[in-house]
């Protein structure tokens, strides 16, 4: 339990819908869902996840806070937008799903082992380090996400592609030691820190 989590639980008591409306991106749309089921049936990931968007929205209204925030569903969303296109109520479902993922992460409730969450975190750290994605270190970190052995295995599988990319100049081997970032890395970090603070203040998170 993070301090932020304890604080919002105290603030919203048992009203999880209100909590979602106030804190989750596009969360105020959740109450517009009429439980028709079109999004659930339209998701190409189908039964690969714990709950469909339809179910998540009903669970939010039913106050199932724990189940929603620890669900893997919002991490499984591939942003195909099939559900948004078909939803008769025009809910921005994809965005709500990402909003929920982000919120669960911010509260420190999201499963630490969830692969999508881990990838997102690796990517974020990589790109914010000096303002530009370093594809080489990104791939390496990703391959070795589950330890040395599996990392080497994946690396060997990808050798062909890596060499091809090297040959065509799509991968810079020097990036391992020297990666050219943006001019004002410090400025970027200051901006991101400020943005994080502002969001925390606006939403009343404990810092």
């Amino acid at each position, binding site marked *: 339990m993070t301090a932020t989590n304890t604080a919002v639980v105290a603030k919203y008591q048992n009203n999880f819908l209100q909590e979602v409306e106030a804190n989750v991106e596009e969360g105020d749309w959740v109450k517009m869902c009429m439980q*028709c*089921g079109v999004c*659930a049936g339209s998701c190409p990931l189908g*039964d690969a996840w714990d709950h*469909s968007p339809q*179910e998540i929205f009903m669970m939010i209204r039913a106050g199932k806070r724990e189940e929603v925030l620890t669900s893997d569903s919002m991490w499984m969303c591939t942003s195909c937008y099939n559900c948004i296109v078909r939803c008769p109520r025009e809910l921005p479902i994809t965005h709500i799903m990402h909003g929920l993922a982000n919120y669960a992460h911010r509260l420190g409730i999201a499963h630490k082992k969830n692969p999508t969450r881990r990838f997102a975190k690796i990517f974020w750290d990589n790109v914010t380090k000096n303002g530009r994605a370093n594809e080489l270190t990104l791939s390496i970190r990703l391959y070795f996400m589950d330890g040395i052995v599996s990392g080497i295995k994946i690396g060997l599988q990808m050798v062909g592609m890596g060499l091809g990319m090297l040959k065509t100049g799509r991968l810079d081997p020097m990036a391992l030691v020297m990666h050219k970032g943006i001019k004002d890395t410090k400025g970027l970090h200051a901006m991101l820190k400020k943005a994080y603070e502002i969001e925390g203040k606006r939403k009343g998170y404990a810092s």
Partner: protein
Amino acid sequence: MTDLVATNETILVVGGGISGMTAAIEAAECGKDVVLIEKTPALGGRVSQLYKYFPKLCHPVCGLEINLRRLKAQKRLRVLTMAQVTNISGNAGDYSVSIKVSPRYVNENCTACGACAEAVSSEIDDPFQYNMSRTKAVYLPFNMAYPQRYVIDGSIIGTAEADQAKTACQYNAVDLDMSEETLELKAGAVIWATGWKPYDANKIQPYGYDRYANVITSVEFERMMDPYGPTAGKLLRPSDNKEAKNIAFIQCAGSRDRNHLTHCSRICCMASLKQSTYISEQYGDDDDAKSTIYYIDIRAIDRFEDFYKKVQDDPKTHFVKSKVANITEDEKTGDVILHGVDTEGYNRYDNSHDLCVLAVGMTPNANIKEVAADTHTDVSGFIEADEANGAIFGAGCASNALDVNRSVQHATAASLRAIQVVNRVASAEA
């Protein structure tokens, strides 16, 4: 036709469906002068295209016949068919209306003997059957058509066939020299009863009405079940003419959907419940026959709840609480496969059916703003009851998605409003 006299004390009714007929008859029975104009060659509107109608499950011909008798008894009521309003100007109690009358090429001498039709072989798509079958290019719109008078389709005018039709008529009723006429009429009040049309199912992309032969609309299904319909009352599916027994109904096809019509079309739940009784009636004890109704929620308003309960008790009818996500086709069999997740348990399904009926929504048939630009309508284009509309009153489905019972009540109310306006004109002129 040109001897049609109308004054500021005349009530003009536009649209000769059940609502327009009701409004016109009631005003005439109250002693008012009424002109009823209808776009197609016959009165009756969409009710005449229903096989049976809820809640009593009687045949619509009976109600139609009663109304036609009342109508024929009214000397003050004049009917113009194949006529459309092109412009309305003026104010309450003093309107000028332009009307365009298309040529029928058959005059009042017609006895509906049918000799003209026998003399020709050209065919056209039959609009009465929603173009599912063809009819002769010289035709009676349907058995109970009023007026009982044949029509010659414009496509054969100028051909030898038209001349053959003329020669075949012993009553001098074929007049190939008729041409489009325009009329200017006065009216004190206008009742706009142009009704509805089914929402264009091609626009509901995931359901594949445009791609799969065995996805049809509720209005087409209604015609198929009618002994006078394109399949003579047999449920033969379009892909292979095999008898369809395992039928799916999809509710809210185009309604309650911000991508299509935002309103609830209100009658389609009842229409599908009714149509499921056709299946049970047609197949009796056949265990293979069943209806499955896919719905968001069943809206069987007020006393129709009884009807819903009865259908729920029918072992041949099943309900799945789910808006179907999409339909695919089994190319080998032509069966349609409905995909979705149900709301009662969140179970994923991929259900195969012989035939799928889309309960398509209702949308206004004519846009009043094209002839009277300032008329107030709601977001769906239905005419609102608004003082700014002066003495232009919507009646029946031109004003909202309504069943026959409510359409008729609404038409009577519109008639009373119109009567008040012409009464005021009359007392001012006296």
